[in-house]
Protein backbone atom coordinates (compact mmCIF):
# COMPACT_ATOMS: atom_id res chain seq x y z
CA UNK A 1 0.00 0.00 0.00
CA UNK A 2 2.80 2.34 1.03
CA UNK A 3 4.63 1.45 -2.19
CA UNK A 4 1.56 2.32 -4.22
CA UNK A 5 1.29 5.73 -2.60
CA UNK A 6 4.94 6.37 -3.40
CA UNK A 7 4.22 5.58 -7.04
CA UNK A 8 1.28 7.96 -7.16
CA UNK A 9 3.26 11.12 -8.06
CA UNK A 10 4.92 9.25 -10.93
CA UNK A 11 1.53 8.05 -12.16
CA UNK A 12 0.12 11.59 -12.04
CA UNK A 13 3.18 12.94 -13.82
CA UNK A 14 2.92 10.30 -16.56
CA UNK A 15 -0.79 11.03 -16.95
CA UNK A 16 -0.19 14.73 -17.47
CA UNK A 17 2.81 14.03 -19.73
CA UNK A 18 0.75 11.77 -22.02
CA UNK A 19 -2.03 14.36 -22.08
CA UNK A 20 0.31 17.20 -23.04
CA UNK A 21 2.29 15.06 -25.49
CA UNK A 22 -0.92 14.30 -27.36
CA UNK A 23 -1.61 18.02 -27.47
CA UNK A 24 1.59 18.55 -29.42
CA UNK A 25 0.12 16.69 -32.37
CA UNK A 26 -3.32 18.25 -32.41
CA UNK A 27 -3.84 20.77 -35.17
CA UNK A 28 -4.75 24.09 -33.55
CA UNK A 29 -5.86 25.43 -36.92
CA UNK A 30 -8.65 22.89 -37.04
CA UNK A 31 -11.80 24.43 -35.71
CA UNK A 32 -14.98 22.41 -35.74
CA UNK A 33 -17.86 24.09 -37.48
CA UNK A 34 -20.53 25.38 -35.14
CA UNK A 35 -23.06 24.65 -37.87
CA UNK A 36 -22.87 20.87 -38.02
CA UNK A 37 -26.39 19.51 -37.66
CA UNK A 38 -27.97 22.85 -38.49
CA UNK A 39 -29.75 23.77 -41.73
CA UNK A 40 -28.01 25.96 -44.29
CA UNK A 41 -28.61 29.62 -43.46
CA UNK A 42 -31.22 31.41 -45.51
CA UNK A 43 -30.05 33.75 -48.25
CA UNK A 44 -31.21 35.50 -51.38
CA UNK A 45 -28.31 36.14 -53.71
CA UNK A 46 -27.77 36.54 -57.46
CA UNK A 47 -26.44 33.84 -59.73
CA UNK A 48 -22.91 33.97 -61.08
CA UNK A 49 -23.73 32.43 -64.46
CA UNK A 50 -27.17 33.83 -65.19
CA UNK A 51 -27.39 37.56 -64.48
CA UNK A 52 -30.74 38.60 -63.07
CA UNK A 53 -31.50 35.26 -61.53
CA UNK A 54 -31.71 35.01 -57.75
CA UNK A 55 -31.11 31.90 -55.70
CA UNK A 56 -32.38 31.06 -52.25
CA UNK A 57 -31.53 28.25 -49.89
CA UNK A 58 -34.34 26.18 -51.43
CA UNK A 59 -32.33 25.96 -54.67
CA UNK A 60 -29.56 24.00 -52.99
CA UNK A 61 -31.00 20.50 -52.90
CA UNK A 62 -28.99 17.86 -51.08
CA UNK A 63 -27.33 15.53 -50.77
CA UNK A 64 -24.61 17.72 -52.22
CA UNK A 65 -21.37 19.49 -51.61
CA UNK A 66 -21.49 23.26 -51.19
CA UNK A 67 -18.09 24.58 -52.16
CA UNK A 68 -16.99 28.07 -51.13
CA UNK A 69 -14.51 29.39 -53.67
CA UNK A 70 -13.05 32.52 -55.22
CA UNK A 71 -10.74 33.48 -58.06
CA UNK A 72 -8.36 35.22 -55.60
CA UNK A 73 -7.95 31.94 -53.77
CA UNK A 74 -4.85 30.14 -55.03
CA UNK A 75 -5.76 26.87 -53.33
CA UNK A 76 -9.09 26.89 -55.19
CA UNK A 77 -7.20 26.60 -58.44
CA UNK A 78 -5.55 23.44 -57.12
CA UNK A 79 -8.89 22.09 -56.03
CA UNK A 80 -10.77 22.88 -59.22
CA UNK A 81 -9.69 19.86 -61.33
CA UNK A 82 -10.70 17.56 -58.48
CA UNK A 83 -14.13 19.18 -58.37
CA UNK A 84 -14.44 18.75 -62.13
CA UNK A 85 -13.60 15.10 -61.68
CA UNK A 86 -16.15 14.67 -58.88
CA UNK A 87 -18.85 16.38 -60.94
CA UNK A 88 -17.98 13.99 -63.79
CA UNK A 89 -18.61 11.08 -61.41
CA UNK A 90 -22.08 12.37 -60.62
CA UNK A 91 -21.44 14.20 -57.34
CA UNK A 92 -23.77 17.19 -56.93
CA UNK A 93 -21.79 20.38 -56.38
CA UNK A 94 -23.01 23.87 -55.61
CA UNK A 95 -20.71 26.84 -55.63
CA UNK A 96 -20.63 29.88 -53.38
CA UNK A 97 -18.47 32.48 -55.06
CA UNK A 98 -17.15 34.20 -51.96
CA UNK A 99 -16.19 37.91 -51.99
CA UNK A 100 -15.23 37.79 -55.60
CA UNK A 101 -15.56 39.76 -58.79
CA UNK A 102 -18.40 38.17 -60.78
CA UNK A 103 -16.78 38.83 -64.17
CA UNK A 104 -13.57 37.13 -63.02
CA UNK A 105 -15.60 34.21 -61.68
CA UNK A 106 -17.42 33.79 -65.01
CA UNK A 107 -14.11 33.83 -66.86
CA UNK A 108 -12.67 31.23 -64.47
CA UNK A 109 -15.64 28.91 -64.98
CA UNK A 110 -15.40 29.27 -68.75
CA UNK A 111 -11.66 28.62 -68.75
CA UNK A 112 -11.40 25.75 -66.26
CA UNK A 113 -14.77 24.07 -66.82
CA UNK A 114 -17.78 24.48 -64.55
CA UNK A 115 -18.34 21.61 -62.12
CA UNK A 116 -21.14 23.38 -60.23
CA UNK A 117 -24.82 22.71 -60.72
CA UNK A 118 -25.34 26.36 -59.82
CA UNK A 119 -23.21 29.15 -58.44
CA UNK A 120 -24.29 31.69 -55.86
CA UNK A 121 -22.62 35.07 -56.06
CA UNK A 122 -21.75 36.19 -52.51
CA UNK A 123 -19.80 39.33 -53.35
CA UNK A 124 -20.30 40.91 -49.90
CA UNK A 125 -19.49 37.73 -48.04
CA UNK A 126 -22.79 37.76 -46.12
CA UNK A 127 -23.61 34.12 -46.80
CA UNK A 128 -19.99 33.28 -46.04
CA UNK A 129 -20.35 34.98 -42.67
CA UNK A 130 -23.53 33.08 -41.90
CA UNK A 131 -21.76 29.87 -42.86
CA UNK A 132 -18.85 30.66 -40.54
CA UNK A 133 -16.45 30.77 -43.48
CA UNK A 134 -13.06 32.27 -42.69
CA UNK A 135 -11.18 31.52 -45.89
CA UNK A 136 -11.47 29.59 -49.09
CA UNK A 137 -11.84 26.85 -50.10
CA UNK A 138 -14.30 25.46 -47.61
CA UNK A 139 -16.75 22.71 -48.42
CA UNK A 140 -19.98 21.77 -46.67
CA UNK A 141 -21.73 18.45 -47.06
CA UNK A 142 -25.51 18.84 -46.88
CA UNK A 143 -28.16 16.14 -46.69
CA UNK A 144 -31.47 16.03 -48.56
CA UNK A 145 -33.09 18.30 -45.96
CA UNK A 146 -30.39 20.92 -46.46
CA UNK A 147 -28.84 20.19 -43.06
CA UNK A 148 -25.07 20.60 -42.83
CA UNK A 149 -23.52 17.24 -41.94
CA UNK A 150 -19.83 17.87 -42.42
CA UNK A 151 -17.42 20.66 -43.16
CA UNK A 152 -14.01 20.44 -44.72
CA UNK A 153 -11.62 23.39 -44.61
CA UNK A 154 -8.94 23.42 -47.28
CA UNK A 155 -8.32 21.77 -50.62
CA UNK A 156 -10.28 18.61 -51.34
CA UNK A 157 -7.98 16.26 -53.18
CA UNK A 158 -8.49 12.66 -54.23
CA UNK A 159 -7.29 11.38 -50.84
CA UNK A 160 -9.43 13.72 -48.75
CA UNK A 161 -12.43 12.76 -50.85
CA UNK A 162 -11.77 9.05 -50.51
CA UNK A 163 -10.93 9.05 -46.81
CA UNK A 164 -13.18 11.72 -45.34
CA UNK A 165 -16.07 12.60 -47.59
CA UNK A 166 -16.92 9.85 -50.09
CA UNK A 167 -18.46 7.46 -47.53
CA UNK A 168 -20.44 10.25 -45.86
CA UNK A 169 -21.72 11.46 -49.22
CA UNK A 170 -22.71 7.96 -50.30
CA UNK A 171 -24.46 7.47 -46.97
CA UNK A 172 -26.52 10.60 -47.55
CA UNK A 173 -27.37 9.53 -51.10
CA UNK A 174 -28.59 6.15 -49.83
CA UNK A 175 -30.51 7.68 -46.92
Amino acid at each position, binding site marked *: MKRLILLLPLA*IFLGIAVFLYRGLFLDPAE*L*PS*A*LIGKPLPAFSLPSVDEPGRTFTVADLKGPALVNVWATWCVACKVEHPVLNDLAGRGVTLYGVNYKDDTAAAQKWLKEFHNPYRLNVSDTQGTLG*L*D*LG*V*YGAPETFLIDKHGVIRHKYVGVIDERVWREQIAALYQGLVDE
Partner: protein
Amino acid sequence: MRRLLIVLLLGIGLAGGARAAIDTYTFSSDAERERFHDLTKELRCPKCQNQDIADSNAPIAADLRREIHRMLQDGQSDQQIVDYLVARYGDFVRYKPPLNARTALLWYGPAGLLLGGLLVLGVIVVRRRRVERTPSAARLDDDERARLAALLAHEERDTPYP
Protein backbone atom coordinates in the same frame (compact mmCIF):
# COMPACT_ATOMS: atom_id res chain seq x y z
CA MET B 1 5.78 82.23 -30.00
CA ARG B 2 3.30 82.61 -32.82
CA ARG B 3 5.32 80.32 -35.04
CA LEU B 4 5.43 77.70 -32.34
CA LEU B 5 1.67 77.91 -32.02
CA ILE B 6 1.24 77.42 -35.78
CA VAL B 7 3.53 74.42 -35.77
CA LEU B 8 1.65 72.95 -32.86
CA LEU B 9 -1.71 73.48 -34.55
CA LEU B 10 -0.44 71.90 -37.76
CA GLY B 11 0.86 68.97 -35.74
CA ILE B 12 -2.53 68.44 -34.13
CA GLY B 13 -4.14 68.54 -37.56
CA LEU B 14 -1.76 65.82 -38.78
CA ALA B 15 -2.40 63.62 -35.78
CA GLY B 16 -6.15 63.86 -36.38
CA GLY B 17 -5.70 62.83 -40.00
CA ALA B 18 -3.61 59.81 -39.11
CA ARG B 19 -6.15 58.67 -36.56
CA ALA B 20 -9.04 58.92 -39.00
CA ALA B 21 -7.17 56.70 -41.45
CA ILE B 22 -6.97 53.87 -38.95
CA ASP B 23 -10.34 54.16 -37.32
CA THR B 24 -12.93 54.56 -40.03
CA TYR B 25 -15.90 53.72 -37.88
CA THR B 26 -18.05 56.42 -36.41
CA PHE B 27 -19.82 55.98 -33.12
CA SER B 28 -22.72 57.82 -31.64
CA SER B 29 -21.14 57.91 -28.21
CA ASP B 30 -17.89 57.25 -26.40
CA ALA B 31 -19.53 54.38 -24.53
CA GLU B 32 -20.30 52.71 -27.85
CA ARG B 33 -16.74 53.21 -29.03
CA GLU B 34 -15.58 51.64 -25.79
CA ARG B 35 -17.86 48.63 -26.30
CA PHE B 36 -16.61 48.20 -29.86
CA HIS B 37 -13.06 48.30 -28.61
CA ASP B 38 -13.72 45.75 -25.84
CA LEU B 39 -15.65 43.39 -28.11
CA THR B 40 -13.04 43.33 -30.86
CA LYS B 41 -10.37 42.76 -28.19
CA GLU B 42 -12.07 39.78 -26.59
CA LEU B 43 -13.05 38.04 -29.82
CA ARG B 44 -10.53 35.97 -31.67
CA CYS B 45 -9.89 36.07 -35.40
CA PRO B 46 -10.88 32.67 -36.85
CA LYS B 47 -8.26 32.85 -39.58
CA CYS B 48 -5.19 34.09 -37.74
CA GLN B 49 -5.33 31.99 -34.62
CA ASN B 50 -3.48 34.13 -32.11
CA GLN B 51 -4.76 37.58 -32.89
CA ASP B 52 -7.92 39.26 -31.76
CA ILE B 53 -10.30 40.80 -34.26
CA ALA B 54 -9.09 44.32 -33.43
CA ASP B 55 -5.48 43.43 -34.18
CA SER B 56 -5.74 41.35 -37.29
CA ASN B 57 -5.37 42.50 -40.86
CA ALA B 58 -7.02 39.38 -42.27
CA PRO B 59 -10.03 40.12 -44.50
CA ILE B 60 -12.27 38.04 -42.27
CA ALA B 61 -11.29 40.14 -39.24
CA ALA B 62 -12.15 43.32 -41.16
CA ASP B 63 -15.52 41.77 -42.06
CA LEU B 64 -16.19 40.87 -38.47
CA ARG B 65 -15.23 44.36 -37.28
CA ARG B 66 -17.69 45.80 -39.78
CA GLU B 67 -20.34 43.34 -38.66
CA ILE B 68 -19.80 44.14 -34.97
CA HIS B 69 -19.98 47.86 -35.75
CA ARG B 70 -23.22 47.32 -37.65
CA MET B 71 -24.74 45.35 -34.78
CA LEU B 72 -23.70 48.02 -32.29
CA GLN B 73 -25.43 50.61 -34.46
CA ASP B 74 -28.51 48.39 -34.43
CA GLY B 75 -28.50 48.64 -30.65
CA GLN B 76 -27.71 45.00 -29.93
CA SER B 77 -26.22 44.02 -26.60
CA ASP B 78 -22.67 42.68 -26.16
CA GLN B 79 -24.13 39.27 -25.32
CA GLN B 80 -26.18 39.22 -28.54
CA ILE B 81 -23.13 40.09 -30.60
CA VAL B 82 -20.97 37.42 -28.96
CA ASP B 83 -23.77 34.84 -29.37
CA TYR B 84 -24.11 35.78 -33.04
CA LEU B 85 -20.44 35.09 -33.68
CA VAL B 86 -20.35 31.95 -31.56
CA ALA B 87 -23.32 30.59 -33.55
CA ARG B 88 -21.21 30.91 -36.70
CA TYR B 89 -17.66 30.25 -35.61
CA GLY B 90 -18.13 28.27 -32.41
CA ASP B 91 -16.59 28.88 -28.99
CA PHE B 92 -13.27 29.19 -30.80
CA VAL B 93 -13.88 32.91 -31.38
CA ARG B 94 -14.02 33.64 -27.68
CA TYR B 95 -10.83 34.23 -25.81
CA LYS B 96 -12.72 33.44 -22.63
CA PRO B 97 -14.23 29.99 -23.17
CA PRO B 98 -17.57 29.32 -21.44
CA LEU B 99 -17.67 26.97 -18.48
CA ASN B 100 -19.25 23.67 -19.49
CA ALA B 101 -18.55 19.94 -19.29
CA ARG B 102 -16.01 20.10 -22.11
CA THR B 103 -14.03 22.98 -20.64
CA ALA B 104 -14.30 22.05 -16.94
CA LEU B 105 -10.82 20.50 -17.03
CA LEU B 106 -9.45 23.70 -18.51
CA TRP B 107 -11.04 25.87 -15.84
CA TYR B 108 -10.56 23.66 -12.78
CA GLY B 109 -7.54 21.53 -13.79
CA PRO B 110 -4.79 23.93 -12.65
CA ALA B 111 -6.60 24.74 -9.39
CA GLY B 112 -7.10 21.02 -8.80
CA LEU B 113 -3.42 20.27 -9.32
CA LEU B 114 -2.43 23.12 -7.01
CA LEU B 115 -4.81 21.89 -4.29
CA GLY B 116 -3.49 18.34 -4.67
CA GLY B 117 0.07 19.59 -4.29
CA LEU B 118 -0.80 21.65 -1.21
CA LEU B 119 -2.58 18.63 0.32
CA VAL B 120 0.47 16.39 -0.17
CA LEU B 121 2.75 19.12 1.23
CA GLY B 122 0.46 19.51 4.25
CA VAL B 123 0.43 15.77 4.97
CA ILE B 124 4.24 15.61 4.74
CA VAL B 125 4.71 18.60 7.07
CA VAL B 126 2.21 17.31 9.66
CA ARG B 127 3.80 13.85 9.68
CA ARG B 128 7.30 15.19 10.06
CA ARG B 129 6.20 17.41 12.96
CA ARG B 130 4.66 14.44 14.73
CA VAL B 131 7.85 12.39 14.31
CA GLU B 132 10.01 15.22 15.63
CA ARG B 133 7.86 15.76 18.71
CA THR B 134 8.22 12.19 19.99
CA PRO B 135 11.57 11.59 21.80
CA SER B 136 13.92 9.50 19.74
CA ALA B 137 14.16 6.66 22.30
CA ALA B 138 10.39 6.22 22.22
CA ARG B 139 10.53 5.53 18.49
CA LEU B 140 12.56 2.31 18.99
CA ASP B 141 10.88 -1.01 19.51
CA ASP B 142 12.10 -3.57 22.10
CA ASP B 143 14.55 -5.37 19.81
CA GLU B 144 16.13 -2.11 18.72
CA ARG B 145 16.43 -0.91 22.29
CA ALA B 146 18.22 -4.15 23.24
CA ARG B 147 20.65 -3.74 20.34
CA LEU B 148 21.31 -0.14 21.28
CA ALA B 149 22.03 -1.15 24.88
CA ALA B 150 24.43 -3.85 23.66
CA LEU B 151 26.27 -1.40 21.40
CA LEU B 152 26.59 1.15 24.15
CA ALA B 153 27.84 -1.52 26.57
CA HIS B 154 30.61 -2.46 24.09
CA GLU B 155 31.62 1.17 23.79
CA GLU B 156 31.89 1.64 27.54
CA ARG B 157 34.23 -1.32 27.93
CA ASP B 158 36.32 0.01 25.08
CA THR B 159 36.65 -3.30 23.35
CA PRO B 160 36.84 -3.81 19.61
CA TYR B 161 33.48 -4.49 18.05
CA PRO B 162 32.18 -7.20 18.46
